[in-house]
Every structure is written in structure tokens, then in C-alpha cells.
């Protein structure tokens, strides 16, 4: 049986967008929940941003909610129907394979792969993050960290000590819920 990373990349590229704010590409985002984009708070500075997909550029989105603590932002797409990502129902396991899709240094839809390195706080008594042994670069921020079924397990947020740090999907769910947006 082949290890189909290419098929996995295709699945994730369809639900990963580029977020442009104030004329500059700032990072990535995930099409989820339906009609919305989840990304990092540090990617979005203004209330109106531009979204680019594989096929379409210059789509409009409005900032709905932002949490600097969680480094999450929620954008609503304006007048457009786009595919929606699948999110994982269970927490990531240490050692499991994960992939990241994003736009590192502007390279659109780049795929990197690795494993979950650890799950835990960055600082003592902090909230848990997913630490992944996956190569990320500026431009991956806000993009998906997904398991090999293509389900999103976290939102990539930063790089520390060579490791990717992603906001676990459970915290993303809480954030979207607190923004008053229903999700399946």
C-alpha cells in the first residue's frame, strides 16, 4: 500500500488559505467552520482582510473575534462558498504522524511532515500546546497541523527551539464557541 502524502496534501490545500492584511501576505488560515476562516491573531491586524485560495484571490473577509492570549482569530467570508476543513475529534497522540500546509516565505501550499513531539505548556503552568517535530517557517502561521486522515489537530502558531507549536484543536473549538459561532 503506498504512503499517499500527495493525496493528503491535496486534501489540505483545498481548505488552507492565504491571509493578506494591509497589502502584505501575513500567513495562512483554515477554512472552518463553514463560512469562516480560523487563523492566528498575530496574522490579522485590521478588521478587513483578503483571502486567497488555490483557485481564487482577493476574497474578502471580516474579523469576527480575536484572542491574543490563544493567538487565534476568526474571520467571516463575504459572499462566497468554499470547502470546509474536517477537524479531529480526538486529541493528537505523541509520536503520531502530522503534516502542516501553509505558505512559508510565500511558497503557496507547501507541505511538511513530522510527528507530534510532545503535548504540554511552553511555560510552567501554562496552557497546553502541541509541539511537533515539523519544519515550519514564517507564512505557516495560522495554517493547519493535521493528522494523516486530513483532520485538523491544531493551528500552527510559532516555532520554538526548532519545533512547531500549534494551538490544540480543543482550544480552537472553545474559541469559536465563545465567539458565538455554531459549528458541527
Amino acid at each position, binding site marked *: 500500500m503506498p504512503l499517499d502524502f500527495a493525496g493528503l496534501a491535496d486534501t489540505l490545500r483545498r481548505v488552507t488559505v492565504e491571509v493578506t492584511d494591509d497589502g502584505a501576505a501575513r500567513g495562512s488560515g483554515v477554512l472552518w467552520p463553514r463560512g469562516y476562516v480560523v487563523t492566528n491573531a498575530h496574522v490579522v491586524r485590521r478588521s478587513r482582510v483578503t483571502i486567497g485560495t488555490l483557485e481564487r484571490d482577493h476574497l474578502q473577509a471580516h474579523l469576527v473575534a480575536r484572542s491574543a492570549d490563544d493567538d487565534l482569530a476568526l474571520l467571516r467570508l463575504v459572499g462566497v462558498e468554499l470547502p470546509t476543513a474536517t477537524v479531529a475529534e480526538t486529541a493528537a*497522540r*505523541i*509520536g503520531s504522524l502530522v503534516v502542516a500546509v501553509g505558505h512559508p516565505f510565500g511558497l503557496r501550499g507547501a507541505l511538511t511532515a513530522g*510527528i507530534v513531539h510532545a503535548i*504540554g505548556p511552553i511555560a510552567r503552568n501554562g496552557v497546553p500546546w502541541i*509541539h511537533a*517535530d515539523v519544519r515550519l517557517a514564517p507564512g505557516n502561521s495560522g495554517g493547519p497541523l493535521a493528522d494523516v486522515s486530513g483532520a485538523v489537530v491544531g493551528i500552527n502558531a510559532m516555532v520554538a527551539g526548532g519545533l512547531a507549536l500549534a494551538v490544540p484543536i480543543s482550544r480552537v473549538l472553545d474559541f469559536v464557541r465563545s465567539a458565538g459561532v455554531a459549528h458541527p
Partner: protein
Amino acid sequence: MDALLALSNELAGAVEQAARYVVGVNGRRRFGSTGVHWQQGLVVTADHTVEVDEDVTVTAPDGRTLTATVAGRDPAIDLAVLRVDAGDLAVAEITAEPARVGHIVLAIGRGPRASWGLVSAIGDGRRRRPETGDWLSLDLTLYPGFSGGPLIDARGRVVGMTTSGAARHFQIAIPAATVDRTLDELMRRGRIPRPYLGVGTQAVRLPEALRERLGTDQRTAVIIVDVQADSPAAAAGLMVGDVLVSLGGTRITEPGDLRAVLHPHQVGETVTLSVARGGEPREVRLTVGEKARRA
């Protein structure tokens, strides 16, 4: 995607297995390192991470702190063995199957934390160590604190002990069979003896004429600058000015090689040295001694 999912689950399962026998080792002032509960009551770790002989502790997977004593060291392969009262701590499953280039492997650090990659080469690209089996060069990241932890296969079986301290520029693992051999020595003698020759050496270039006479393409060797009295080297008749080219068939290209080729199990054994004296090749038989233990 089924094959990917199966592999992913296997890797995650392997980490869970390993987490039961991977311990934290607290033996240096900086951040701690990792150890493997290799045999009941014996924890294997990287020698360079155990900077003290006393007040070493081990952190069990459940967070308990266990007192440890240093049972022995083999700096030649960066291995230290700690004795702990491990109770019901799980013992690692060690595989004797040799790792192959291209195998997917995981390095596990205390926590547990995991890193994955491939066995990229057998050997560290420089020396061959037929005596012990070669080191494994790894294409993976050994994060801070990983040294001394297990290198495991996708089934969770230990194929080696990782260390970043033994070879510059390389992430390497000591094969499990090499660790086993050193542990056998510890069991047999009650300690890990440190091999002793009794020479001081410096690197020296081998002129082409001498290389031809020796029948080697080796460019450097070591020249003996000191022979300690009553040492194995003195007993074997080695003299200051002798150029030592190989030991037991393994090339000696710099002083560090002498330390790297001598292993605890060779103490008391006779090895053959290839030496050039006054430009003449000769063979010297030497019985490896044991370095006196510190009081």
C-alpha cells in the same frame, strides 16, 4: 491514506510503549537527560550527561524520584549505567535485530517527547568499529535532553541509545548489542573496567614512503611521546618515538582513536599493534591493562 494511518498509529503506539521504561536522568547542573530502564534495576544513559558520581537521581515515568548510583561508565561509547531501586518500573524490550539504513526510527526523550527520522548510515562516516558493531548515524533531531534515551523501531523495540555528545556534527545511536555487551561486562566483573595502555601520543603525518612500506593509504597515525613505567605499553616493549598505526586491525589516526577503539571487555586480552620503529614496520603484542580506579 490507510497505510499512512496505520504507520501513524504504529508510531504513536511505539511512543506509548517506550514511555513506560524511559526515565529522566538528573546528573548534571544544566537540564537533565534521558535514560532507559534496560534491565531490571539498571538504567542506561549517556556518560557525558552524568557529570557527578553521587547525588544522581532518576525520574520515573509516574514522576517519582528514585535515588541512583553510578554502576559503571564506558566513555569510549558514551555509556553510563546507573543502579536504581526500580520496583515495578517496566523494562525495555531490546531487539537484537540490527538496524538497517532507511529504517524509520524514533528517538524518545524524557516526558515523553518524540522525534522521528531514518537510520541514515551505519558508522559515523569516519571510523569503523568492527569490534563493537558500528554506531548508527541518524537523520533526526536529538532535542536538548534527549541524550541517553532510546532509539526505537516502529514496534517500540529498542535498537540503540541515542547521544549527541559522542560525535560532533552527527546524531548517533549506540547499537543495542553494544550496550548489552557492556552490561554483560558489568555483570561479570561487578564493574565496567577502563582499558589502559600507558602511553601518551600525538598525531603525526605518515610520509608516503612509510605508507608504502606499511601497505596502507592512511595519512596520519600517532607517535608515542611517553611510556608510563610498569604499564602494559612498557611491558610490551613500546618505546618513545614508535609510530602506532593500528590497534587490533583498526586504524589509529589521532590520539582520540585510541580511546575509541578500546573497550572494557578487552581488559586482560592481548591485542596486536601495528607499529613503525625507525621507519621499519613491526607488530607488537600487548595485553590491555585496567586503569586504576579512583579512590
